[in-house]
C-alpha cells in the first residue's frame, strides 16, 4: 500500500502498533521525490521518546498527511490531513497535531513539566569560563549604549492583573526618555542573578489623557504606591527621592510580566501577564510581611517615607479608565490563537 498525496484518501501501510504507522512512497506537493518513514504518535509531552517524529504543518482541522520523513533533522513543511474514523492506523495521528489542542495563556497554569519547580530554581549549568571570556571580549568592543541609559533603580510591588492576591516585589531599572515618558526593565531582584521578568512603561497624566480609552484600561495609576512609600529608590536618602516622586505621583504605568517566578516557573512560560499597582482597596493592599521584608533589606523606615510624602500633592483626579478592575471588577489575560500567517508569498 502507498500513501499518495494526490489522492484524497491516503492509505498507509502496516500499523506497527497503536501509536506507529509506516508510510511508504509518499509523494508531497512540494517535493517530487517519494518519502518514507515511520510516524510515531504520542499524546504525551515526553518528546524524547519519539526521536523520529516527523514535522507537520497543520492546515485546517481536517488535517491531511501528505508526507513524512525519516528524521526530523530536515524539518520541512508539509500539510498533513487526518481522516477521522478510518480504521487503519489513523486513530492516533490527530493527537500529534498539538495546535488543535489548548494553547498557552497568561493566566493558565502550565501542565506538569520540569520547567516548573519549588523555589523556581533556574535549571541549567553554571556559566562557563569560555562564555565569560566571550562576554568580556564583547564588552570591550561593543558600545551597549541603550543599556547605559538606565540611571534610576526603583523597588516597588506589583499585583497580577488577573489575580490581585498574587503580589511580587519588583526592581525597575529606569530610563527617562523625556519629561513625560520613561521605559523600565523589570527584574525580580537587584542582584547579578536577577531574572528579567518584564517591561514597564510610564507616562505622565498629560500623555495618558491622549490615549484612547481601550488603551487606558491596560494602565495603572502610581499615586498610592508612591505616597505610601511602597515605591522607593534604594540607596537614596528619602529627601533626595522627593523631586523624583513628585513628578511620578501623577503618572500611569503599563507593566507586562513575562516570567511568573512567584508561581514556580523555572523558565519563562506562557503569555505576558498584565500587572496592576497596589491601591487603597483591601484586595489591592500589599501583604505587610512582603513590605516589611523589603524595608528591612534596604533600611527603609516606613515612618520617613510616608511623612515626607504626605506633603506631596495628590493628583487632583485619577482617570477612572486606569486601574480598570477597581470600577469593573475585571482584570485582563492574554491568549494566543493560531491563525493563517500573512506573508508576501515567500516560503513559510
Amino acid at each position, binding site marked *: 500500500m502507498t500513501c499518495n498525496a494526490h489522492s484524497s484518501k491516503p492509505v498507509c501501510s502496516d500499523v506497527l502498533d497503536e501509536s506507529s504507522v509506516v508510510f511508504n512512497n509518499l509523494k508531497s506537493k512540494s517535493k517530487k521525490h517519494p518519502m518514507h518513514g515511520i510516524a510515531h504518535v504520542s499524546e504525551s*509531552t515526553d*518528546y*524524547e521518546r519519539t526521536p523520529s517524529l516527523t514535522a*507537520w*504543518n*497543520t492546515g485546517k482541522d481536517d488535517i491531511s498527511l501528505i508526507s513524512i520523513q525519516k528524521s526530523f*533533522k530536515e524539518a520541512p*513543511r508539509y500539510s498533513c490531513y487526518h481522516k477521522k474514523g478510518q480504521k487503519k492506523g489513523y486513530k492516533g495521528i490527530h493527537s500529534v497535531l498539538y*495546535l488543535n*489542542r489548548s494553547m*498557552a495563556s497568561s493566566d493558565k497554569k502550565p501542565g506538569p*513539566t520540569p520547567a516548573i519547580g519549588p523555589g523556581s530554581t*533556574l*535549571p*541549567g549549568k553554571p*556559566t562557563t569560563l569560555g562564555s565569560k571570556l*566571550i562576554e568580556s571580549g*564583547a*564588552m570591550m568592543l561593543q558600545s*551597549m549604549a*541603550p*543599556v547605559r541609559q*538606565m*540611571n*534610576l*533603580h526603583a523597588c516597588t510591588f506589583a499585583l497580577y492583573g488577573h489575580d490581585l492576591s*498574587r503580589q511580587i516585589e519588583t526592581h525597575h*531599572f529606569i530610563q527617562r*526618555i*523625556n*519629561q*513625560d*515618558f520613561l521605559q523600565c526593565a523589570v*527584574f525580580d531582584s537587584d*542582584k*547579578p542573578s*536577577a531574572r528579567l521578568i518584564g517591561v514597564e*512603561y510610564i*507616562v505622565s497624566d498629560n*500623555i495618558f489623557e491622549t490615549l484612547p480609552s481601550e488603551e487606558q484600561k491596560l494602565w495603572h495609576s502610581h499615586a498610592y504606591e508612591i505616597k505610601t512609600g511602597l515605591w522607593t529608590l534604594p540607596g*537614596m536618602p528619602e529627601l533626595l527621592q522627593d*523631586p*523624583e516622586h513628585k513628578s511620578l505621583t501623577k503618572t500611569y504605568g503599563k507593566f507586562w510580566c513575562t516570567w511568573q517566578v512567584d508561581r514556580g516557573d523555572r*523558565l*519563562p512560560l506562557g*503569555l*505576558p501577564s498584565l500587572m496592576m499597582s497596589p491601591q487603597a482597596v*483591601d*484586595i489591592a*493592599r500589599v501583604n505587610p510581611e512582603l513590605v516589611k521584608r523589603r524595608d528591612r533589606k534596604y533600611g527603609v523606615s516606613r515612618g520617613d517615607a510616608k511623612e515626607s510624602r504626605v506633603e506631596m500633592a495628590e493628583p487632583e483626579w485619577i482617570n477612572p479608565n486606569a486601574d480598570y478592575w477597581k470600577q469593573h471588577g*475585571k*482584570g485582563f*489575560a*492574554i*491568549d*494566543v490563537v493560531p*491563525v493563517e500567517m500573512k*506573508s*508576501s508569498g*515567500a516560503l513559510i
Partner: protein
Amino acid sequence: MATSHVDVPGEPTETGTALLETATGTIQGFQPINNIHQHLCAFHFYAHDMTRQVEAHHFCGHLNEDVRQCLIYDSPNKDARLIGIEYIVVESLFLTLPDDEKPLWHSHEFEVKGGYLFMPGVPGMVERQDLKQVCKTYGKVIHFWQDDRGDPLPLGIPQIMMALTRPGQLDENIAKDVEKRFGVSFEEQREQRKDLTGPDHGIHPLANAAGRGLKTELREVDIPPATSMPRVFV
C-alpha cells in the same frame, strides 16, 4: 528603517530631573543591568504577519550557561526604544517545556547559519565562538512596542515574534540597509559559518509556531473575590 523613529510625545527632560537622575545613576547599584554584556543584531517578524519585519538589537546577559535574557531595542543608539524581551535556552531545556509553550519559541539555526544574526563590532572569529552555541538554542521573543507601524508609544498588547527560518523570508531592503550600516555581509558570514550545526535533535516540529501564524488576544477575566489577607508565594 531603524535609523529614525517617530518621536515619543512629551516635554524635554527638565534640568532638575536630569540632575537628580545623574545622581541616582552614580549612587545606586545596577547589578542586573551590569550583567548585560553582549549586543546581538537580528531580525524578527510578527508571528501573525511575516511582512512586518523589525531590526532587533538584543542586549543580552547569561543567567547561566544554558539560559540568557535580553532586552530588545529598536537601535543601538542612546535614544533607542525598549521594544521587547527575548529569552534564549539550550535545546535540553527547550525540550522540557510543555507542548503548549513550545510553539511560542523559535529556532536560531537558520538565522545564525544564514549570517543574519551578528554581533556588531566583534571580529568574526570571536563572534563564531558564541554563535556556535547560539545556533543550537531556541528563543522566545515578545515585543511590546510596535514602532514599525509608527506607534509613538507602546500601545496595545504584547506580540509574539518569530525569527527567520528559511531563505526568501527577509525583505531585501531591510537586509541591505543593515548590511550597509553595520558594514557586514550576510553572504560572507554564511560562507564562514558553514561548519556550525543546529540543535542535536534537529529543529523540533512544534517550534516556530509549528509552521502556523500566532496572534495574541486580550480577554477580560473576573477578579477572584477579596480575601482578607493576600496570598504570598514565597
